[in-house]
């Protein structure tokens, strides 16, 4: 074994052993906590809150009751016989689209909202890209009785208009972000600024497996319910593990939630699909792990789309939820070790996959999710006869405007 392969194998072993994040919030070389001094106390309190409550029996019971009775967990694992026939594969769909508010985001939002209540904060702020995390946060805050403010880029407010309405209905204040790239990245910038201005009484409810430690850990723990359920369900329903588990990767929360419980099952290939946009050039995609290099953004050291001067690149994806230049540090480690593979599919492939899933399974998935379907299909074409598990991160109702624009 070459030195490099040996090193990778050690990292994988450490991953499986649950060594990450370490006490510095690191996943191998990635992760950490790069935040303004004003927020250091808030992050410390959050970290303490996470270790105090996340494994607390009562908190767990409270969270599990909400997941079960309000969110609607376990979400089903659907066989997809008609897609399977077309693809020459055995296809299984883990249905986060059926979770309350229509995406996996609620698993994280309700968990953090319950935590926020325990921490005794006065209010919650959240950023959102596709609006799904904003809707989930608004709903979760209403459920636990905390005021909620959601920062959303102007561009995203246009392309995901129905979700803006939903957040408002659910009692959240939606703050348009007109600075920066006016999408998810700028919304996170602005949420952080808001948090910096109110570090003690405000809880920042981050929506993906990114940000400074302990966010990537907290989000992964809250989203792993996806993979845990799927692991059990596919054994029960299909009689064994899948050959591959596929998920779309924006910040990486649904993907890490699906992947994490399968990491120790070395026979299960993990396949993350990034947004290939409309090209591989600068600003044409948001395929961070495919095209990026390490760097620091939003508090974490991970793979990043930035130029030679360390300036963050503009990104493009037809799906607002994937339109982000960073990615969670655990994915960076999974990619570096080869335990997971990350590929990009472009806007058109995602659109095609979305339509195919509508037509053959009666399931309108989110544009984000459609990237996973496109990736699964590509995999199936090259590897006939495999058992494929797809993470259906959300439903596509929110995308109808965008779809209409692209259907002519």
């Amino acid at each position, binding site marked *: 074994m070459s030195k490099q392969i040996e090193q990778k194998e050690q990292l994988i072993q450490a991953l499986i052993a649950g060594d990450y994040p370490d006490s*510095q919030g690191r996943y191998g070389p990635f992760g*950490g*906590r*790069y*935040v*303004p*001094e*004003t927020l*250091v*106390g*808030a992050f410390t309190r959050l970290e303490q809150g996470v270790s105090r409550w996340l494994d607390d029996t009562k908190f767990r019971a409270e969270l599990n009751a909400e997941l079960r009775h309000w969110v609607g967990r376990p979400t089903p694992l659907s066989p997809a016989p008609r897609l399977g026939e077309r693809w020459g594969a055995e296809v299984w769909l883990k249905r986060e689209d059926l979770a309350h508010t229509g995406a996996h985001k609620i698993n994280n939002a309700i968990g953090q909202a319950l935590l926020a209540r325990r921490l005794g904060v006065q209010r919650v702020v959240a950023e959102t890209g596709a609006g799904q995390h904003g809707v989930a946060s608004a709903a979760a805050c209403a459920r636990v009785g905390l005021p909620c403010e959601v920062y959303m880029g102007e561009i995203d407010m246009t392309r995901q208009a129905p979700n803006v309405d939903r957040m408002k209905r659910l009692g959240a204040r939606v703050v348009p972000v007109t*600075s*920066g790239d006016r999408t998810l*990245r*700028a919304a*996170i*910038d602005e949420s*952080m*600024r808001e948090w*910096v*201005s*109110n*570090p*003690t009484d405000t809880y920042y409810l981050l929506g993906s497996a990114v940000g400074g430690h302990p966010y990537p850990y907290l989000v992964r723990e809250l989203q792993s319910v996806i993979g845990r359920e799927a692991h059990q369900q596919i054994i029960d329903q299909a009689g064994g593990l899948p050959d591959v588990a596929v998920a779309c990767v924006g910040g990486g929360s649904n993907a890490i939630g699906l992947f994490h419980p399968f990491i120790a099952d070395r026979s299960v290939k993990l396949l993350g699909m990034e947004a290939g946009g409309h090209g591989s050039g600068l600003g044409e995609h948001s395929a961070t792990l495919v095209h990026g290099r390490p*760097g*620091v*953004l*939003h*508090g974490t050291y991970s793979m*990043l789309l*930035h130029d*030679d*001067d*360390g*300036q*963050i690149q503009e990104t493009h994806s037809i799906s607002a939820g994937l339109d982000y230049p960073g990615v969670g540090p655990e994915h960076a480690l999974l990619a570096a070790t080869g335990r997971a593979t990350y590929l990009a599919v472009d806007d058109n492939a995602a659109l095609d996959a979305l339509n195919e899933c509508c037509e053959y399974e009666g399931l309108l998935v989110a544009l984000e999710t459609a990237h996973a379907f496109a990736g699964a299909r590509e995999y199936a074409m090259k590897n006939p006869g495999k058992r494929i598990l797809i993470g259906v991160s959300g439903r596509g109702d929110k995308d109808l405007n965008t779809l209409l624009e692209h259907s002519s």
Partner: protein
Amino acid sequence: MSGATRITAAIAAANKQGRPALIPFITAGHPDMNGFAEHVAILAEAGDVVEIGVPFTDPLADGVTIQRSSERALKAGVSLSWILDTLEQSAAQRTAPVLLMSYLNPLLTMGYETLAGRCVDAGVAGFIVPDLPFEESAPLRAAIEPRGLALVQLVSPVTSGERMKKLCEASAGFVYAVTVTGVTGGGGKADQAAILAYLDRVREVSPLPVCAGFGIREAAQVNAIGTHADGVIVGSALVEVLEQDGDARAFLQSLGGKLHE
């Protein structure tokens, strides 16, 4: 003299004149790249220490003014590399020490070793890195400290007592006391008495001069804060003057700039 020492000395010199040190901040290359060298010269003349902002796409500790200036500078083509080149050309003539205020990613991307070397050549005395907490700073310090470059630590009104002591002891050049919990440019009405008490607390534990920054815009503030801090940092207010094509020199003098004997 090391960069750190030069900074501390410049502040001490101001204090010896019976006034807080004035540390003006500008975003490099804003409002236009051509004026950068001249602006640095003006700041070095009127200020005791000069703080140069390296524009970044995601300035998440900054208010609207510095966001706007950063965006415009980036659009014009400003880069860390260009800033260092430009500073290097005038390094010899400049007496006031220069600090770079930069988010971590541009520094990281240049590579710490390259960065440190080029900073020495450019007469840069040290760094302020708003998204680099002490706990993550070892790799950067390992590269810059051997070359005498300072990594200025920030403290904030919500920094705990114990931590404040640690940060003050770990700092170099001076301690940057953020006066508000918020972004640059201020805006929120801060309780003046609380700020002064906070500055006293920082000074009590700091072996280094303590300079106050964030939201300082006028002479009255400088005077009030000046008796509780060893220096004041003026950023957004100065950036706005430049943006409106105002007289930076006159503005800085109105704040009680360096006395030229």
